[in-house]
Every structure is written in C-alpha cells, then in structure tokens.
C-alpha cells in the first residue's frame, strides 16, 4: 500500500486540536512539552500511547488529572517498547477475531534518554527485532531530568550534571554521547529519523512517516530542558535550531537502510560556510559554562573535533562528499 505524502501548512497545524493538553505541569519553556504537542498533532488517529516514567509522564498524569486526550498507558522506566509490543499484538489478534472497528490504530511509545539509551534499550531492541508495528519516540533532553539531572548515555561530552559535576576532578561528563540512532539503523529496521522541534514541519512529517510505515519506526527528537541545562526558558526553540546549525544534532532519516540528510542539514552540507562553531550553541547553557574557562580550552577543542568527525561520518553515510568551509 502506498500512502500519499501528508501535506500541511502552519495554519492546518494551529487549527488541529491538541491531544497533549494544556494544564500539564512541565516547567515553563519545556522543550519536550512542545515536542509532545507537535507529535500528537501529527498523528492520524486513532492512537494509543504508552510512556515510560520520566518528566513527561509525571507532568502529564498527576492524579486525578491527565493531559492525554487519547488512550494512554504509563509503564515502568524500562518497558516502554515492551508495552507497545503488547498493545500491538493485542490489536492484531482483535483484528483477526473481528473485534476491531478500525483499519489501523497507531501505537506510539515515548521514552526519555534514560528510558532509551540506558535502561530501555533491551526492550526496544527486542521489540524492533520482533518487528512490531509501532513508533518509538525518544525525546532527548540529555539527562535524567525527572530525578534531578543525572547523566545518561545521551548526555553529551563535557556537560555538567549532578553525577558528572564540573569541578576540580572532572570537567563535566568524560564520555561521549552514544550514537543511538545509528544503533537503531543497525537493526535493519524500516524507518529511523532524527528531528529537532525548531524545524517543526520536518519533525511532523517524520512522525507521520514513522506511523505509516509497516513495522517498527524510531524517531530521535532533540528536546531542550531549561531546568536541567540551566538555560533561558525562552530559548528552547533557539537551541533546537543552533544544535542543527552547528551539526551537534544533524537531522536525517534512514528509509530501509538508505540514509539521507533532511533539508535543514542538507543546506549546511551544500554550503559549509553556514555551519556554526559549537561555542555558539554551547554558550548560555549553564551545563557548559565551565567549558569557556581558560583551563578547559582543550575540552572546547575536543567538542568541536568530535562534532566535526561525527558530521563527516554522517555525510559519508548519506553519500555526500565532505567539503570544508
């Protein structure tokens, strides 16, 4: 079955009612909250959502209130993907028995970086290997925010968290961010993409593609957290733009293993002079404040070096030839 490409304007999206409702208790300027609103506006419906514990689960389900206008199931920290597997299997059997009145039901599993890179990866890997038809959304705020900003496998190199504090012993997190989307591509799954909410149209198109594809889809979404990043709440969308422009978080998709850059990153590959230095992205974020101290000069150089190396590796994967500015 081929599906027609979903075309929409800003006003179409603005007019669509929210399925992730106001009255949730995320901090002011919460990037994941914007991301959730956008994702839910891109669903076809009917939709069932399941979500691992973490900030967005907590803020949207404080008893007796719910911010979900669709069926939603909270699950343990590690089991977002296993829950989605069960839901999808149940839908399949109901359809077989003639007990489902819908042609298709979208199943979405949400988890944070802790719930994906770390404790959730086994359930995710298994669900993808079994081929369940669902969309897994990783909203990446780059630490365990809900429990007080502990580092995760998704926390970037050099970032200060409560378990990787910048001080005399270490200059923030010593390890590098785990390439989670590449790990998912290595599962030979039908659809993997990365997205950043400043590029809302790109993000929403990818949500729809991930839902339409048969089999598992994985979407890695950049989601600034002003509380944990010690950044200005007004700048959450600005950082989601700068992360893409500095190639710290490039946007791309892999369809059946065929990898290509999405427009915002493609434009930078075509005009490398538009690629911003990483310090333009890092500055203003309290978690990186120490990087600008003279004694940490090497760290800043290293962050730039690693960003460039990963960008060039991505360019090669996408069949682009790296050009220098």
């Amino acid at each position, binding site marked *: 079955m081929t599906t027609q490409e979903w075309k929409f304007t800003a006003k179409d999206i*603005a007019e669509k009612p929210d399925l992730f409702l106001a009255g949730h208790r*995320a901090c002011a300027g919460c990037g994941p909250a914007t991301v959730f609103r956008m994702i839910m506006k891109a669903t076809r419906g009917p939709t069932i959502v399941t979500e691992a514990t973490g900030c967005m689960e907590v803020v*949207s389900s404080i008893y007796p209130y719910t911010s979900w206008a669709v069926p939603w199931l909270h699950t343990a920290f590690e089991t977002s993907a296993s829950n989605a597997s069960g839901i999808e299997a149940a839908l399949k059997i109901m359809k077989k028995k003639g007990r489902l009145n819908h042609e298709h039901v979208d199943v979405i599993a949400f988890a944070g970086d802790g719930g994906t890179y770390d404790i959730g990866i086994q359930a995710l890997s298994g669900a993808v290997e079994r081929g369940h038809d669902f969309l897994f959304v990783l909203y990446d705020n780059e630490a365990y925010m809900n429990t007080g900003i502990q580092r995760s496998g998704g926390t970037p190199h050099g970032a200060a968290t409560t378990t990787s504090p910048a001080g005399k012993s270490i200059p923030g997190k010593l390890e590098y961010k785990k390439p989670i989307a590449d790990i998912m591509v290595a599962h030979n799954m039908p659809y993997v993409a990365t997205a950043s909410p400043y590029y809302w149209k790109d993000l929403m198109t990818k949500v729809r593609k991930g839902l339409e594809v048969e089999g598992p889809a994985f979407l890695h979404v950049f989601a600034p957290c002003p509380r944990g990043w010690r950044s200005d709440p007004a700048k959450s969308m600005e950082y989601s733009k700068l992360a893409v422009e500095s190639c710290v978080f490039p946007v791309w998709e892999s369809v059946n293993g065929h990898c290509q850059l999405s427009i915002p990153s493609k434009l930078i590959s075509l005009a490398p002079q538009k690629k911003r230095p990483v310090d333009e992205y890092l500055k203003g974020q309290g978690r990186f404040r120490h990087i600008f101290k003279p004694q940490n000069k090497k760290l800043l150089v290293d962050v730039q070096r690693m960003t460039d190396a990963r960008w060039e590796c991505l360019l090669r994967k996408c069949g682009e030839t790296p050009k220098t500015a």
Partner: protein
Amino acid sequence: MTHHNKNWKEIAPAGVCSKSSIGFLTGDWKTYTPVRDPEKCTRCVLCVIFCPDGAIKWHPEKNDIEFDYNFCKGCGICANQCPTNAITMRLEQESK
C-alpha cells in the same frame, strides 16, 4: 481459614486519571506575561505551534490568535520566536 484473595478480574485494573488537565490552571506560575501588538502581528501562527503549553489559540473564523492566560507560564518562547517581534514580555503588574 476462609481468607479470599481477590482474583485478577476483581482487582482494579490500574490507576485511572479521570479528569482532564484542562481543569488545572497553570497561568499563575508566570512572572512575565506575553503581550502582542496586533499591528505588528502577521498571523503567521508560529507562536501557536511553538508554545509548550498550548496557551495560544488560532481562530480561523476571526483570522486571529488569542492568548489563554489561564495556562500561559510566561516562558517567553513565543516572544523569542515571533518573526516580527510583535510580542513583548511584561511584568504582570505592568501588563494590567
């Protein structure tokens, strides 16, 4: 002993949140209030899309946006992203 353990059909299936969070107002969290200049506003609706709290509504029939201060937490994202700088953040007292 005649103790009876409830079977799985008898116990509550799970905790259920029965009320919509629309009934929980978050508007009093804010320090600064977004105020829009309708002259400068082009009705591009970007602020409606970017607001984390769904606190800006688009009314196609009026061809206009409307702030819902009952939910707005005063983050300033709308003001920061507005392409025409139509939104200013004001201290609550000033905006009244």
